[in-house]
């Protein structure tokens, strides 16, 4: 299929941009790097749109979409069967991801031209953006799980670099470290999962792994460790990797802090693209998980469900708008995971899978929009906190409208895209697991509530006294907002069930009024609640907060998870493991080695008396020695 050979350019262009701006960026005027990066990004955006167009709509796909590998080369060979390839794999989800990533990334590039203007390290910022985009693209087009792992790591690092962009700010440094280490910990699970999987199946290749009814798992069934089958281990561990990136509970703690990074970064990495890598991974391995490790799939479902509820609850109480958005991201990711967890394989059964991907797509659009909007708000008022904001709608009209659209979308108000995707998920959940359905139903309401809490308290209410009157952001920032707004409005009408499905075969879905109507209603109810509580300044929220007392504070402090982690790392690891080991090494082991020397010297001083200088002592020794030898020898002889 050489027809798609050009797809290799899609990741390559950002890479080149990274190298160029990274090495030469300091020498140029900042704006040059910015424009260069943006143009480059634009090119690969166009390319991926072309790819998507020709892949999805070029020719009919009665027999389903083909998996196309236009480019592949061996990068490192472990054994005859096990080798890491670097290549491009095109199938519905990867193409879909290509579109998502390049779109959002391009928008962010564009947006940052305005947002980051005058920041020192402007060039560095664009270099990192390009690096991230390259890694992310490489991740989604991976032809085998190890290539995915490679780019998985790269993504982690570029996120580390971008979170820590303001590297003189200790909080930023801490956040970046936390993000990297937590995800790294999860990646360990991923790695071990890969090791087990490759040991069992003898291959890294997605093609071989996910091919329906493949025989490579024949031997696997027998293998088990601690009573659990090897594949369940493998899949669970790999899911842990995914959970780390997608910030599933309990590995979610890094995401809120990651908001220390520049807002466009949050939009790109921590809302739209990187955090869905985990979902993508699970989707990628879906056949294996579904057929070989159903237990693992159960886990995925419940973790997703819990995370979405958990995050939604926390989101209600946060005041930092970016954190609210971060927690809403968590909860939406929970949705996607849950959808995968409850999905079946093939046709109608695969509804959850389709829904998950669908929601991934729409969520990317409106969440990016939300973040960019938040960015432009922060840009205007120079604060992250709701209580510094209010009545901004007249100052920031465009931002206001787009933000409103986004809120409605996420609240699942028809006919906006969020409605469709969320609805599909609910349906899928309903069919497989009533409990999870209930949870999601509740969360839908919560989502609507906290989003509009945010919306009202920022754009309505009365003015705060701002240092200078907030002003609408420049065009470079508002264009992306508008584009994404449009996208979030209409994305819902894409026929996903014909494009992105578990078995690559299209199928037909119809409205399930039984599900849609209640979900819309509860969404509206949430909005109404928010209207009542936050439309006007009122003491009601305060009272409520006091009423709930302890529960409120617990929620406000994100159920003290950061503290727990802090305790584990700082106290346990540092004080109770490293410190003793360091001490042990210096004093016991090294002490022993040094001790040998000291003892020798001590003996040397102890025995100096033998050389007394008295001739007759010497003579005595002499004779005594002789006789001793004689006696011993004679004794041995006898």
């Amino acid at each position: 299929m050489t027809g798609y050979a050009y797809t290799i350019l899609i990741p390559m262009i950002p890479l080149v941009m990274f190298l160029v701006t990274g090495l030469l960026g300091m020498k140029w005027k900042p704006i040059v790097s910015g424009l260069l990066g943006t143009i480059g990004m634009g090119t690969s955006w166009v390319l991926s749109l072309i790819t998507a167009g020709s892949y999805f709509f070029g020719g009919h796909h009665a027999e389903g979409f083909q998996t196309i590998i236009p480019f592949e080369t061996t990068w490192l060979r472990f054994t005859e069967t096990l080798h890491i390839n670097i290549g491009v794999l095109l199938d519905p989800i990867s193409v879909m991801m290509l579109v998502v990533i390049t779109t959002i990334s391009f928008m962010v590039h564009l947006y940052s031209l305005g947002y980051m203007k005058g920041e020192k390290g402007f060039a560095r910022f664009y270099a990192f953006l390009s690096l991230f985009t390259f890694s992310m693209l490489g991740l989604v087009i991976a032809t085998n799980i190890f290539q995915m792992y490679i780019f998985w790591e790269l993504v982690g690092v570029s996120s580390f670099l971008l979170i820590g962009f303001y590297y003189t700010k200790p909080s930023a440094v801490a956040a970046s470290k936390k993000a990297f280490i937590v995800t790294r910990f999860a990646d360990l699970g991923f790695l071990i999962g890969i090791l087990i999987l490759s040991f069992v199946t003898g291959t890294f290749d997605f093609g071989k792994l996910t091919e329906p009814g493949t025989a490579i798992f024949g031997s696997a069934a027998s293998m088990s460790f601690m009573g659990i089958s090897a594949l369940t281990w493998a899949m669970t561990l790999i899911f842990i990797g995914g959970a780390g990136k997608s910030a599933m509970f309990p590995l979610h703690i890094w995401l809120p802090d990651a908001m220390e990074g520049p807002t466009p970064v949050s939009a790109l990495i921590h809302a739209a693209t990187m955090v869905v890598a985990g979902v993508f991974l699970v989707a990628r391995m879906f056949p294996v998980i579904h057929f070989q490790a159903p237990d693992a799939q159960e886990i995925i479902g419940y973790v997703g469900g819990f995370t979405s509820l958990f995050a939604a609850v926390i989101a209600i109480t946060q005041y930092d708008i970016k954190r609210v958005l971060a927690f809403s991201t968590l909860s939406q990711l929970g949705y996607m995971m849950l959808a995968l967890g409850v999905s079946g394989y093939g046709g109608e059964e695969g509804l959850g899978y389709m829904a998950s991907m669908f929601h991934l797509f729409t969520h990317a659009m409106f969440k990016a929009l939300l973040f960019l909007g938040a960015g432009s708000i922060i840009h205007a008022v120079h604060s992250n906190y709701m209580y510094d904001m209010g009545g901004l709608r007249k100052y920031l009209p465009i931002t206001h409208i787009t933000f409103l659209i986004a809120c409605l979308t996420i609240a699942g108000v028809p006919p906006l895209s969020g409605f469709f995707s969320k609805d599909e998920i609910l349906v899928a959940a309903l069919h497989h697991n009533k409990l999870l359905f209930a949870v999601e139903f509740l969360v839908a309401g919560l989502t609507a509530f906290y989003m509009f809490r945010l919306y009202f308290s920022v754009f309505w209410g009365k003015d705060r006294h701002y240092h200078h009157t907030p002003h609408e952001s420049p065009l470079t920032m508002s264009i992306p907002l508008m584009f994404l707004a449009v996208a979030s409005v209409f994305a819902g009408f894409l026929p996903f069930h014909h494009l992105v499905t578990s078995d690559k075969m299209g199928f037909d879905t119809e409205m399930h009024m039984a599900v849609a109507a209640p979900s819309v209603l509860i969404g509206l109810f949430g909005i109404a609640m928010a209207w009542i509580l936050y439309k006007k300044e009122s003491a009601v929220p305060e009272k409520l907060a006091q009423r709930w007392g302890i529960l409120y504070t617990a929620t406000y402090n994100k159920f003290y998870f950061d503290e727990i982690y802090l305790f584990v790392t700082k106290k346990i690891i540092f004080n109770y493991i490293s410190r003793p080991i360091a001490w042990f090494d210096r004093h016991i082991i090294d002490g022993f080695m040094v001790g040998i020397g000291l003892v020798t010297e001590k003996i040397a001083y102890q025995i100096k008396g033998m050389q007394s200088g008295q001739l007759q002592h010497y003579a005595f020794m002499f004779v005594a020695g002789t006789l001793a030898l004689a006696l011993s020898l004679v004794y041995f002889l006898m």
Partner: protein
Amino acid sequence: MNILTSLVVIPILTIIAILFTKGLKGARLVSAIGMGVQLLVTAVLLFSYLGLRKAGVTDEMVFTADYTWFKSLNIHYFIGVDGIAVAMLCLTSIVVFAGIFASWEMEYLSREFFISLILLATGVYGFFISLDLFTMFLFYELAVIPMYLLIGVWGSGPKESSAMKLTLMLMGGSALLMVGIFGIYYNSAPDGGPLTFNILEIAKIQMPVEAQRFFFPFTFVGFGILGALFPFHTWSPDGHASAPTAVSMLHAGVLMKLGGYGCFRVAMFLMPEAAQEMAWIFIILTTISVVYGAFGAIWQTDLKFINAYSSVSHCGLVIFALLMMNETGMDGAILQMISHGLMTALFFALIGMIYGRTHTRDVTKMGGLMKVIPFLAVVYMIAGFASLGLPGLSGFVAEMTVFVGAFQHQDMFHRVVTVVVASSIVITAVYILRVVGMILLGPIKDSHHEHLEDAKWFEKLSTVTLVLAVAAIGIAPLWLSDTIISSLKPIVERLAMAIPF
């Protein structure tokens, strides 16, 4: 003259040339030229080697040369290289080259410094090319001894004591080694015939199993001490901390590799049965040293100590992988040797340069250096990423090969310890990021650090050389790994044939 012999001759000539120079300028110029030539020769060697292989030469060793030395004891000057040796030689040349430039401004007794440094290098080159246990051992000790003067005279801190500790521990190691070598020698002809030190000859026969059981531990531990095998690693933190920059580079980068190299080239290759039988002991030890070293590094505050402990961890990984005794694992071990050699040399070079500016190695006293010395800081970050196994840098390739190889082992015990060992990558991330966060990022802690000047040209040259090497392996590892694997075949086969009893 045989190209390999020239690898030993050039340094000696360089030393002689230095004797005729006056002061720092001449000495460093001569050494730079000499080691530059050496680097070129190594490159030529590498390409001609690859050429030979491509031409289908399948001998285990190439460029061999064999001169009888002590006839009655059948001691030969027998040299030759396979892919692994070539790789190690390249590593050595690169590190030495970088080391010369890293010590470009060694004012105090500069001639003597460069002479000892290059003498050390000579020993290393000789060790890697020799296939005769006697010559090998000779060069081994030749490489170890200059350390004493290098650390004692040009070191810092408690230099005398650390130099003495290092020398004595390594010499104690070579004591065990010597016994092992004699054991091998006197069992090299179990069924009559002349005794020999020739590794290839001995590899043809099977030593009596009892003899192997007795001598394998001696040989393995003897080399292991130089490879910082737990619990014989304690010379390394002190030694590194006190040593001058270039010496730390050479020592951690190259000298410690002699240990790993000897472990498989001599101990395991010549005594496979015993290796198979006793592997588990050393696997446990190395597993400990991998995790232990990493945890130890977390708590340190002296940059060099941090690096020394991470070296313990990484070198532990080398021996661990060797003991997996399958192709992939050992391939990973070699890769890890090379990658660790390069990046730890890079680390020590940078630490030296930073120390030269801030006059402290205490991480708690530094901060925000990224602002003032961006070049060094960025390179330090790269080194750090290499060390925590970031794809695209050598560390990742090596570690992944090790893990995959180790996990392919059929025995459950090996797979479990592999998981334990793999967990070290997280700990590594923790201490690397801790250091980076403390010294490079954040606000500037010490007002004196606000006006430091960034790297000079020779420092850039020194570090960039290493960075390029690290990145090259990280981006295109295939040719290297294939070269190594093809050279590993005889060793692995021999180990596989040895049935554990």
